């Protein structure tokens, strides 16, 4: 039986820098899986290779039993992988509703239909009251939720969230965590998230992958991973804790 998402021995270099180094892991369907690691560990690069921004050098990426490495970003999205960006990228001149409608139009070609679904998602993410506002006028937390909404509108089976909690206050973080948990439970959406905010990671993740210098140094249940000496070493240095 093929895995839901399988990353097998992929690497990625930028000129001389090895960002991802022969990385392999599997994400089972239906769970929430977190990728953590110090800055520069290669997390966003990993996401970018999965999402098709650039192909990995060597190795394979399989999604739902089919290879997706080397495909274009939009093709991968159509296969069912949605993503958000580390630095949010809404469509600034479009309204909140229009932003999400763009996502919904992927699966629903009829504009009125897509708009209805967009509004439903906006309500789910609790920003429906801002639907006629321009995306450029939103606050950061709202933009983050907009980005998630837009990705959700494409009806993905796997959602890649890149540091979606960064810059949020604890109450906002909890709110978003709640929404994500709900969607994961109800729609069975598999979530792969990059996070620095440990509060969110511990609340959401069933399994955690720790990256350092582009390679995996630990993988497992949250309680084990945070006690792993190699993990602590990578974050805090060689000091005795």
């Amino acid at each position, binding site marked *: 039986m093929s895995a839901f998402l399988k990353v097998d021995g992929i690497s990625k270099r930028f000129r001389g820098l090895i960002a991802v180094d022969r990385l392999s892991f599997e994400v089972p369907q239906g769970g929430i899986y977190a990728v953590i690691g110090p800055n520069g560990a290669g997390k966003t690069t990993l996401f970018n290779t999965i*999402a098709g*921004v650039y192909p990995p050098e060597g190795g394979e990426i399989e999604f739902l039993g089919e290879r997706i490495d080397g495909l*274009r*970003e*939009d*093709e991968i*999205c*159509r296969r069912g992988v*949605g*993503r958000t*960006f580390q630095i949010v*990228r*809404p*469509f*600034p*001149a*479009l*309204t909140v509703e*229009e932003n999400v*409608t*763009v*996502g919904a*139009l*992927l699966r629903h*070609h*009829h*504009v009125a239909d*897509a708009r209805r679904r967009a509004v439903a998602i906006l309500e789910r993410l609790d920003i429906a009251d801002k639907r*006629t506002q321009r995306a450029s006028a939103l606050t950061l937390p709202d933009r983050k939720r907009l980005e998630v909404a*837009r*990705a959700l*509108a*494409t009806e993905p089976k796997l959602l890649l969230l890149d540091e979606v909690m960064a810059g949020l206050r604890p109450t906002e973080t909890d709110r978003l965590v709640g929404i994500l948990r709900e969607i994961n439970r109800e729609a069975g959406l598999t979530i792969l998230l990059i996070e620095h905010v440990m509060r969110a990671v511990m609340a959401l993740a069933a399994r955690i992958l720790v990256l350092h210098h582009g390679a995996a140094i630990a993988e497992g249940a949250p309680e084990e991973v945070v006690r792993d000496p190699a993990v602590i070493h990578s974050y805090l240095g060689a000091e005795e804790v």
Partner: protein
Amino acid sequence: MIARLFEGLPPRALILLAVLFAAALAAPLIASDYLLTVLILIFYFAYLGQAWNIMMGFAGQLSLGHALYVGLGAYVTASLFVFFGVAPWIGLLAAVPIAGLAGAFIGFLAFRFRVGGVYFAILTIAVAEFARLGFDHLSWTNGSAGLFLPVKQYASNDLWTLRGHPVMFYYLLLAASIFALVVCRALLKSRIGYFWLAIREDEQAARAAGIDTFHYKMLAVVISAAMTSFAGVLYAFYYNNLFPEQVFHISRSIEIILAPIVGGVGTLFGPILGAFILTGLAETLTTALAAAGIDMPGAKQVFYGVCLLLVIVALPDGVWPWLKARLGLKETQP
């Protein structure tokens, strides 16, 4: 379906539209011959501006070589008419696909090879220049000596062969401008429109949302090119002479972009408003100079340059958004 086009417009806008439409219909009845030629120019640039706007305002691709499509439309239909007696409306069936193909060629070159932004603009300029020089040497169409259409003294208007009084051209261009307006609005509200706007705003984010950006950018280029070529047909049959040096020249391309930029890129009424402002003022300037006995070739172009400069510096979104706010005509879509 017609009703859907007007959905979202406040009543004030609808009344204004009706008034303007009536005025436009009646204009030839009260206008002098000279004023009629000015109005023809205005709607010519209004139509062209709309067509160009699809590429730039909707899909975000800056083309500075639109004269290419005008020229192709003009030369294909004119040649077919002069050498084979083919009526322009039949000739259109050849001209539009040819222009569309030219657009597709440029689009393919650019988008397949990730040529964007300024590089894309330079590519469009280069291809138009290539055409200009090419047609200069094309003996089939008399090269730089020019292609001339036979003009007979006509007592009546022949719509089929486009031989007739300027009034005929006025109504044709008015109809074309309205048609373009309708098409643009319909496109904007459609799935294609949404995808274009997304691409314009942030192409990578659009891809991440599942949009095949290559496909939609190509669509914008081809539609824009095809629409533009129709203006070329009217150009050929109105002026009755074609010179590659004039038709394909970069000044023509720049004139095409002026109206939409001044009026407001990406808006529906921007190109039309821009055409009225620019051509209206330019002609006033020329008339004033002529009245004062000054013959300054180039004065009009300097004026255009200054207008472009002022708009970019002071009103970058164009005059129409500013005017719309003043008139209280805010609506949900541009």
